[in-house]
């Protein structure tokens, strides 16, 4: 391997081209290297090659996804900032806005679960507070391999501790998430972290640089040798050499993050900042280039001024380091002294490392020499974009289940099996390790339909949820893509929130493979259709490709982070059943569709067939009708019907309320298994007072929403005539058992 660290080549001093091994080590193809030479009109030196490698890799350039992401709807009357900034922003009235985004940290978390997950949280927090917002809630979606896989347990423990360790220390409540096990993640776990912040509309900060000769200020932690080439690691498959790449793992320091947050908030009180951006993937390189590109100007950086943690760091290392807890600020020149004072107060480094220049170039100086000189456009708009080849998946053939398969089963045994399954079991062990009440505004903690935090000094609250459905997506990516958006929408509706916008984290395998690319394109198409129809735009996101180990890809796993607004939180709805004699209604039509259901996969061991169809009209109509009922105060508790069907959702409501239900014998034609475990979409269970039944059915009828009564709340038992009669306490035990025994 070339010693990148000791050699400094001066610009124009070398004529020799790099060999293809070095080029490959930088994650570049030979044709990309050729393009670099053309853009520069010469061959790059090693530092420049490193910079191109960082900016042109998949993670930073979105070269395989760019043309497809354009299909996503990104606008609505509530959107202040769509994709393209550090995070998306939506209007929530009263001159307030919510800034939010999701980020993946998959590869680092597999290599070092604690630090990988921790720095994932740190990164997404900076994306949010760099825009002027104070973070108010975190969520996460974590996917692991089969529980039986020897690595899974340690990865789970490490990731959960890492997420908690960072978020708890900074003092941001983690209000929701999802935890999923499937063998397709055996060699490639997913760690997606989402964060939301609150900002005053007139106090939003952007990353677009402007003005010439404005100082470029580096703040936060010192730069070390950590994480060099992290972004290119995220842009390649895992292989046997992954272990060797270990030194690139970064260590997070949440304490410094907290100081950085407070210092930035203090600096943001006046108009000192022209532009600001966190140093995320590809560190100083991507932050400086992106800010310059957006502002159509150049930057001159004197690398001798970069605060370094270690002696003799080379320009290559400084530019590519992914040390955490750092920010880059373009400052109003007159405000430098004052700004410096603030960062000194918080005990953080503050260094003037250069200035904005008119020529659209990135000029790097070191020891009085120019060691790098690259046109900004070569790194940004002229970076490669690919329209990769793809194969689309046809919708699989419907499965016909023979009746005798059901005859061997019992409803109650099936139910117990499902609620004891790792993916349905109670995730308390996970979220009790996250501080979910710090900031003292948490109205709904993890474990419900959505997390909810209120906005101080208003009646408003923000609901947020994070969802994915790899099984549906792998069966039919287009339907899967639609389904997650709808599930996210339902989760928000169920707490009484009006869904406003989403962020998305698209976790896929190798885009150079036609099948993976096809999955990606179809999922994006599905997301796009649903978002369009529901007027639920995408305001930010992240793409994570190359989630593969030894050529084995993960299931396509787009993760959707949904955000909704509750105008008056005294009307918020929770999912715990409230009191005896209230009646329960299933809203939405139950056809008993079992394809890709938990029941099919776990009980029948049948993984074939298409996922349930999505009817966007019903989805919207049902959801809006639920909101109308909530607004009119008819609904006492609500829960969407998702994985596991009616019975699993019902049990979740019973467990949450520690109260039972007497289930009515279904009058439908479908058999009991189809009725209770089918995963038809667009459905909810609501609890209402018996006395209100007429008013409620009038509203449902008026809106042409199908509904049926399904039972009555009763004391401590779940019963279905001629089938079962079981204490809720027992169900709680089954639901808790798996996680407890797995961890201990």
């Amino acid at each position, binding site marked *: 391997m070339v010693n990148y660290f000791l050699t400094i080549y001066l610009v124009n001093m070398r004529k020799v081209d790099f060999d293809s091994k070095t080029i490959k080590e930088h994650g570049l193809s030979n044709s990309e290297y050729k393009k670099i030479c053309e853009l520069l009109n010469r061959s790059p030196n090693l530092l420049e090659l490193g910079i191109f490698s960082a900016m042109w890799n998949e993670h930073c350039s979105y070269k395989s996804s760019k043309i497809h992401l354009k299909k996503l709807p990104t606008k609505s009357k509530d959107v202040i900032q769509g994709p393209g900034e550090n995070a998306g922003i939506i209007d929530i009235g009263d001159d307030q806005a919510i800034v939010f985004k999701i980020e993946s940290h998959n590869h680092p978390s597999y*290599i*070092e679960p*604690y*630090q990988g997950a921790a720095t994932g949280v740190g990164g997404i927090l900076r994306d949010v507070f760099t825009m002027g917002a104070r973070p108010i809630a975190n969520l996460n979606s974590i996917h692991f391999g089969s529980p039986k896989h020897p690595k899974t347990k340690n990865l789970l423990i490490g990731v959960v501790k890492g997420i908690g360790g960072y978020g708890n220390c900074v003092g941001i409540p983690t209000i929701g998430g999802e935890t999923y096990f499937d063998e397709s993640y055996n060699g490639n776990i997913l760690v997606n972290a989402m964060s939301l912040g609150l900002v005053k509309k007139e106090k939003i900060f952007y990353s677009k640089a402007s003005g010439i000769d404005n100082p470029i200020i580096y703040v936060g*932690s010192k730069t*070390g*040798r*950590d994480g060099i080439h992290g972004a290119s690691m995220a842009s390649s498959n895992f292989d046997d050499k992954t272990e060797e790449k*270990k*030194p690139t*793992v*970064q*260590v997070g*320091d949440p*304490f*410094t993050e907290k100081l950085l947050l407070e210092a930035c908030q203090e600096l943001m009180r006046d108009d000192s900042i022209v532009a600001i951006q966190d140093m995320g993937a590809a560190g100083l390189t991507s932050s400086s280039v992106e800010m310059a590109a957006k502002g159509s100007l150049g930057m001159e950086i004197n690398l001798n001024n970069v605060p370094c*943690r*270690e002696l003799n760091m080379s320009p290559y290392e400084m530019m590519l380091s992914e*040390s*955490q807890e750092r920010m880059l600020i373009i400052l109003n020149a007159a405000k430098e002294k004052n700004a410096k004072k603030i960062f000194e107060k918080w*005990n953080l480094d503050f260094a003037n490392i250069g200035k904005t220049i008119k020529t659209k170039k990135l000029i790097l100086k070191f020891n009085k020499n120019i060691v790098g000189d690259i046109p900004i456009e070569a790194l940004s708009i002229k970076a490669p974009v690919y329209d990769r080849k793809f194969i689309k998946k046809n919708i699989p053939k419907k499965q016909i289940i023979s009746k005798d398969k059901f005859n061997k089963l019992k409803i109650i045994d099936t139910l117990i099996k499902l609620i004891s399954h790792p993916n349905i079991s109670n995730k308390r062990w996970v979220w009790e390790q996250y501080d979910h009440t710090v900031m003292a505004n948490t109205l709904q903690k993890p474990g419900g339909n959505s997390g909810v935090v209120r906005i101080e000094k208003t009646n408003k609250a923000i609901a947020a949820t994070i969802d994915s459905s790899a099984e549906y997506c792998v069966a039919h990516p287009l339907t899967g893509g639609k389904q997650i958006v709808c599930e996210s929408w339902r989760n928000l509706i169920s707490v009484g929130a009006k869904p406003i916008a989403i962020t998305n984290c698209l976790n896929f395998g190798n885009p150079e493979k036609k099948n993976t690319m096809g999955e990606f394109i179809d999922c994006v198409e599905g997301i796009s259709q649903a978002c369009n129809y529901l007027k639920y735009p995408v305001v930010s996101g992240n793409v994570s490709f190359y989630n593969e180990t030894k050529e084995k890809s993960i299931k396509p796993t787009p993760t959707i982070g949904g955000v909704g607004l509750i105008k008056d939180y005294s009307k918020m709805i929770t999912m715990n059943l409230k009191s005896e004699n209230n009646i329960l209604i299933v809203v939405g039509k139950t056809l008993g569709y079992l394809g890709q259901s938990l029941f099919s996969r776990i009980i029948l061991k049948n993984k074939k067939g298409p996922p349930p169809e999505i009817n966007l009209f019903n989805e919207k109509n049902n959801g809006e009708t639920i909101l109308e009922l909530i607004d009119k105060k008819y609904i006492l508790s609500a829960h969407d019907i998702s994985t596991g069907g009616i019975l699993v959702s019902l049990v979740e409501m019973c467990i949450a309320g520690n109260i039972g239900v007497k289930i009515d014998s279904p009058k439908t034609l479908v058999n009991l298994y189809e009725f209770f475990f089918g995963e038809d979409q667009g459905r909810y269970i609501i609890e209402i007072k018996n006395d209100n039944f007429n008013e409620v059915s009038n509203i449902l009828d008026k809106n042409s929403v199908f509904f049926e009564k399904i039972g009555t709340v009763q004391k401590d038992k779940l019963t279905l005539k001629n089938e079962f009669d079981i204490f809720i306490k027992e169900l709680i035990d089954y639901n808790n058992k798996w996680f407890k025994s797995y961890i201990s």
Partner: protein
Amino acid sequence: MKLSVIVTLKKEVLDPQGKVIQQTIGNMGIKNVSNIRQGKYFELEINEKNYEMAKSKAEDICKRLLANLVIEDFKIINN
């Protein structure tokens, strides 16, 4: 047999704890302390006949549990 294990962060890895401790020492008015790194220390009571066997067991434990070799090194010492 009692063995001790010292686990330290690799040199190039950030040590947030060491950094804060060092600053605090400075703030307390103690001079001339130029660098501090924090690590972990373990005492193991291993019932093996000879030191070599105990040591190899300790090594195994370090690799599999006590040290995170991605970011840490370890050292076994004989008390």
